[in-house]
């Protein structure tokens, strides 16, 4: 196989990886702060994909553009969900949280199945088959736009956490919950905002993914697992880790797809997950437990 093919695949991997990274970032933020394990993460991504699909069907809105309003909508959804349903579970045993979210996942997946049916859906954009040429290498325009949108969203999130007072407050609450409460931070509100932000990432990522791939409701569990793999490989609770993990997985899957076969590309992610858990469970950027 020619070098340019490898380079193409590598670039594709990086571009996909940025979108995966955005999705995983949502998970990392939620777990890092609220310490809730969102087993319904992939389900919300698929929900976002369907929303983008519907928006495209009704109003011809490009899914990548739709990522912005969907991010806002999912923020509201996340905020409401945390406030209304998840908050009581923050102090309850961890397994009860998981089970709640497994229930949510079931409801979302099967709700989508009921409404849209099991057939795979995709979106045809005017530039779906166009590509840029860079030194003999072909790069799909869709992927570039998608990755760019993901980058913008990611940068916005980082900026929020570093630069705004609320973002700093959230990081404080993540670091030291009692301390945060003692200095008067409204932890419940911060948790809700964080959950909202987490789902906003998922919403944006899902919308972008609609432009890139086909989807069915059954895709959801593998997306959840993908998000978790990225977060664990990168380091639970580390935003940089989620991004790095996304890129790593994106590239690994793309290369595996080329070198072995597309069917087993998710096995590569799992293999990485198992490897990380076996050798360095805190991931690339996570802190080791003392």
């Amino acid at each position, binding site marked *: 196989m020619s070098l340019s093919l490898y380079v193409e695949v590598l670039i594709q991997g990086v571009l996909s990886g940025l979108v995966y990274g955005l999705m995983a970032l949502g998970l990392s933020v939620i777990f890092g702060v609220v310490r809730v394990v969102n087993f319904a993460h992939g389900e919300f991504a698929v929900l976002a994909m369907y929303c983008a699909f519907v928006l495209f069907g009704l109003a011809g809105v490009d899914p990548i553009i739709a990522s912005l309003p969907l991010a806002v909508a999912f923020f509201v959804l996340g905020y409401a969900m945390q406030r209304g349903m998840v908050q009581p579970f923050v102090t309850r045993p961890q397994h009860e949280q998981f089970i709640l979210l497994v229930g949510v996942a079931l409801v979302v997946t099967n709700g989508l199945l009921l409404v849209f049916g099991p057939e795979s859906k995709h979106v045809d954009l005017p530039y779906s088959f166009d590509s840029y040429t860079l030194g003999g290498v072909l790069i799909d325009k869709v992927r570039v736009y998608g990755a760019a949108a993901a980058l913008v969203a990611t940068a916005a999130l980082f900026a929020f956490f570093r630069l705004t007072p609320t973002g700093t407050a959230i990081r404080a609450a993540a670091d030291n919950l009692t301390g945060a409460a003692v200095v008067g931070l409204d932890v419940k509100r911060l948790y809700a905002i964080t959950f909202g932000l987490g789902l906003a990432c998922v919403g944006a990522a899902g919308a972008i993914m609609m432009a890139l791939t086909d989807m069915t409701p059954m895709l959801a569990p593998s997306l959840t697992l993908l998000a*978790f793999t990225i977060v664990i490989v990168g380091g639970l609770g580390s935003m940089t880790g989620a991004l790095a993990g996304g890129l790593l997985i994106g590239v690994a899957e793309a290369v595996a797809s080329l070198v072995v076969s597309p*069917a087993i590309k998710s096995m590569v992610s799992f293999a990485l997950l198992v490897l990380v858990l076996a050798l360095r469970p805190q991931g690339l950027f996570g802190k080791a437990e003392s």
Partner: protein
Amino acid sequence: MKAALSFLTPRSTVALMACGVALLVAPFVVDRYTLSIILLSLLGAYLGQAWNILMGYCGLLSLGHALYLGIGAYASAVLFVNYGIGPWASVFVAAALGVAAAAVIGWLGFRFRIEGVYFSLLTIAFAEIARIGFDNWSFVGGAAGFFLPVNAALADQWWNLRGGPFFFYYLALAMAVAALAITAVLRASKLGYAFLAIREDPQAACALGVDINRTRFLALFISAAMTAVGGVYIAFWTNNLFPAQVLDTSKSIDMILAPIVGGLGTLMGPFIGAFLLVPLGSALTDGLRALGLNAPGIKALVYGLMLMAIIGATPNGLWPWLARKLGLEAREP
């Protein structure tokens, strides 16, 4: 044995006997369709009890238990079809392979005594690896499936698990009763109490001399072995195996609904849960079909809502409440 049964009060003994008799005579009393519902409920109770040992008693949340089901099913099926080895022999191989897989997962998951979420994710990952692997492995038929021969000449060979509905019904009943017995014995034993201690507070258990790792591995092995044996049943009863059905996450979730709804860490929970959810699900799908509506996923949707409702309102499941209402609570030993 006496210790295992010490939880029974006179009232609950009568209730248990009554249920037992009802289940024994059911094939002669109810129609084929109802019998199949009861059979599925018994199977659900069996698998639920196996999972309950790991989660309800030992506190380890496995969301990829279909792995053991699939391993047991495929191992026994392949050994039968390709090598002529009967299921009563291959069941041991199935259980052993299930335990081997569990050993790997346990070794990875327990090493650093890390948070429960890592263990749960490992279980999902392994089940998915198996599913994709089997999907692409021609030796076991791949995604197209693996089939056991069914023909009149082979009928009623009980040693090859070939038989009619009565045969499979009583087999399921026997398995369910065995699961109940195993759980009852475990519960009264030192190992069972070790499970509980780890579930409640691993650090405190440690400080009392409980060997955390060994105990967790045992819980995992028992649960995996039982589930793998369930897989053997599935293989010989359905006669066709597809990775997308028997190794899928949805199957893993299916297996855990009954014990959660019925009551984690209780003896009767999985039974109550299974005998509630299976008929309910069937009634739902059949009712809709009768109305001419095709609603894919409605059953799972309802299950999901029930799961949310139960874990929100009565996280200990329905059985504790039901037992109180009916005066069937366990007696303290």
